[in-house]
């Protein structure tokens, strides 16, 4: 079985999300990578170096410069004659493009696969991840998106695939890019940050949050979250709240500082890849689900941590 894998890139290098998609595709068979964009030759060469990629298809055209699904999907469909599967990481780009491809191929997509159980059998999250479904595709060809935190990243070097240019159907003329606001700000957005530092009521007040949580977040380039109790007490504004009634996050690393771990909070971060807890109460429920726990007074431990990083 040969899969065509969508490569997320920034024209110069390949994004981590792609490496997870490659791992997933490699479990199904051979992997060919598709790099589409404008002036993205360097990204294609980077893709060629990914371990496990046997070939890279490069579609370099102004029509693909902004990843418009109306232009990309026909490109992919035109190539799919040679492939059994189209695999994309479940990034916003992947989620935008893959279903359009699936409909044009008249297949049903499998979204956000967590594991591969067989050539056509996968597990995926439903009901906001509260239930895991095992599904089997009956279509002749497969279109799937991959949850990146569920698959280890393939090595970015070690491969030496050939890069072949392909052409698509150009601009469909249905859509155009107007502008973008990429948050290059001091702090990444909570729901898309790779690392999140979150504070609870134990921080005592807004000043405590500012003095303890923010410096650690800055050091790690992390997003900042809070428990409902901290938000209710006014330490930080409402949009920092992580939990059942706040934001649901699933970063690579979630550091819970002074948070007891009530189930309402866990509901908002239980899908984080690694949970780290710092709390002076060793019986706090958070330690029952934390991968790494430190029983310590946060007012001493966190500044020390920030300094030593």
């Amino acid at each position: 079985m040969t899969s065509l894998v969508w490569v997320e890139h920034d024209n110069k290098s390949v994004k981590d999300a792609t490496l997870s998609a490659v791992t997933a595709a490699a479990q199904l068979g051979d992997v060919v990578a598709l790099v589409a964009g404008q002036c993205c030759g360097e990204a294609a060469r980077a893709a060629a170096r990914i371990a496990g990629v046997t070939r890279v298809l490069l579609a370099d055209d102004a029509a693909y410069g902004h990843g418009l699904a109306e232009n990309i999907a026909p490109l992919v469909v035109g190539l799919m004659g040679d492939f059994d599967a189209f695999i994309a990481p479940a990034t916003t780009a992947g989620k935008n493009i893959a279903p359009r491809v699936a409909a044009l191929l008249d297949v049903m997509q499998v979204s956000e696969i967590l594991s591969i159980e067989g050539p056509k059998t996968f597990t995926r999250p439903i009901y906001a991840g509260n239930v895991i479904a095992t599904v089997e595709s009956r279509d002749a060809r497969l279109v799937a998106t991959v949850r990146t935190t569920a698959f280890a990243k393939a090595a970015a070097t070690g491969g030496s695939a050939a890069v072949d240019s392909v052409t698509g159907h150009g601009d469909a003329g249905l859509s155009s890019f107007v502008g973008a606001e990429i948050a290059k700000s001091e702090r990444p957005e909570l729901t898309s940050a790779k690392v999140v530092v979150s504070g609870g009521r134990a921080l005592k007040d807004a000043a405590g949050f500012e003095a303890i949580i923010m410096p650690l977040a800055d050091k790690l380039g992390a997003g900042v979250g809070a428990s409902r109790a901290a938000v209710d007490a006014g330490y930080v504004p409402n949009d920092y709240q992580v939990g059942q009634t706040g934001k649901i996050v699933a970063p690579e690393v979630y550091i819970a500082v002074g948070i007891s771990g009530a189930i309402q909070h866990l509901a908002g971060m239980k899908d984080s890849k690694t949970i780290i807890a710092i709390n002076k109460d060793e019986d706090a429920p958070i330690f029952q689900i934390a991968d790494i726990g430190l029983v310590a007074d946060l007012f001493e431990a966190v500044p020390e941590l920030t300094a030593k990083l």
Partner: protein
Amino acid sequence: MSEREAMDYDVVIVGGGPAGLSAAIRLKQGNPDISVCVLEKGSEIGAHILSGAVIDPRSLDELIPDWRERECPLAAVAVRDNQHWFLTRKGKFSVPHWLTPGWMHNKGTYTGSLGNLCRWLASEAEELGVEIFPGFAAAEVLYDEHGAVCGVATGDMGVGRDGKPKPDYQLGMELHARYTLFAEGARGHLTKQIIAHFSLDADCAPQVYGLGLKELWDIAPEKHRPGLVIHTQGWPLKDAYGGGFLYHQADGQVALGFVVGLGYRNPNLSPFGEFQRWKQHPQIRAFLEGGKRVSYGARVINEGGWQSIPKLVFPGGALIGCAAGFVNVPRIKGTHTAMKSAMLAADAVLGALGAGRGGDTLRTYETALGSSWLANELRMVRNVQPLIARFGAVLGTVLAGAEMWMRTLGIGLPYTLGHHSDRTLLRKSQSRPISYTAPDGVISFDRLSSVFVSNTNHEEDQPVHLRLADSEAPIAWNLPLYDEPAQRYCPAGVYEITDREAGTPRFVINAQNCLHCKTCDIKDPAENITWVAPEGGGGPNYPNM
């Protein structure tokens, strides 16, 4: 503020529980042409309904005689094995049937979810043309120029925590009616206002309550015995009276729970803690091991009985169901009596509307109730609760048993015992400390994870619906005298005292956790907390409870 819009009905019913829905159905059965609307603060019918329940079908037989053929879910499990246990710490004494009068044996009763029964009643009501509006809380009683009740107004929606309108602000609506029936359940907040306004409780004993906590479990199939109904007394309660229940219902589920009389004096008592402790009894936990908890909830239940029933009618309306308080305490049944009261009130309304009346007093409701089987039933058991409250679990039960037998045999004495207010607490310094073991997360649980499975949700940015008359009282009075018992009597962990070590204790109200049980409105020793309805649609979303 702009004028509220108004809608006119012949009858407006506040509360979509068994009483409210039965009244609605009876009204439309009697006269299909009258307009009837039911307002329900829960997000759907059943969302706020919590009961054991073992239901006497007597009223259902009167209201909809072919209820079994009409696929009423209650028909699924008839009670076939009724047991009453006295628990000791490790063992039990099963009370033999011949010791209690026949009407205590649950013959001919059914066990199931009252919430599901209400959902079925609602579909029956809608088929008859009743308009049901879930997600709308009645927030205000409306009076006409004669001082009669002429309807209710729903609460404004989209008000921020600071009291100011948010972008999605919507003014409440007035619903005008010729008669308004209040079916809010035990300790209804508008009912409380009406009772005070018309002095309906001038001649009756104070109402007293128990707090009922309940969980719904999926249990191991081999342990499931549908129709098995167990009530327990005794262990673990020391400082209060009350007891547990465990009912094997449909779909492999068990409904179990615990009721604690709120007249307890020891401020260190936690009804939630007693419930979790009771589940650890070997005979109880045996059913639960290998199972999984599905839901949790809590609600107060009337225990005052006949002598605490206030005047039921006032110009323009009436009280039906637990809003008035018709629970038969020894049978632990209030659904059939609530429904009967609702049907009697509906009949009175039909007569009044037929005679072209409106906005006046439905005296025929009270007279009809006084000569109904409902009155006979409640008069028979009126001294049971006071005897147990006064003389304790063992002696009180013996005396109550004697009293029940005497009245069953027709030789009851013409006395009626009264009640003390639930509010009285002993000081912490005079009370025995009680320790509760930490939850194991398998059989016993903490309050927050319990609130989680009650599916409780409130719009966060809204005014706090638990109103303190004096914001200093919790710290100034309740904390030093009683160690602020709100921390313990609230089954949802709404009330917390924080920052004690820092020396600046604060009283925190986590209003979003509120289960709408009304315990705080009853038990606060300073009578400081008034529960009002939060924005409609908020609160628990009980599944099959």
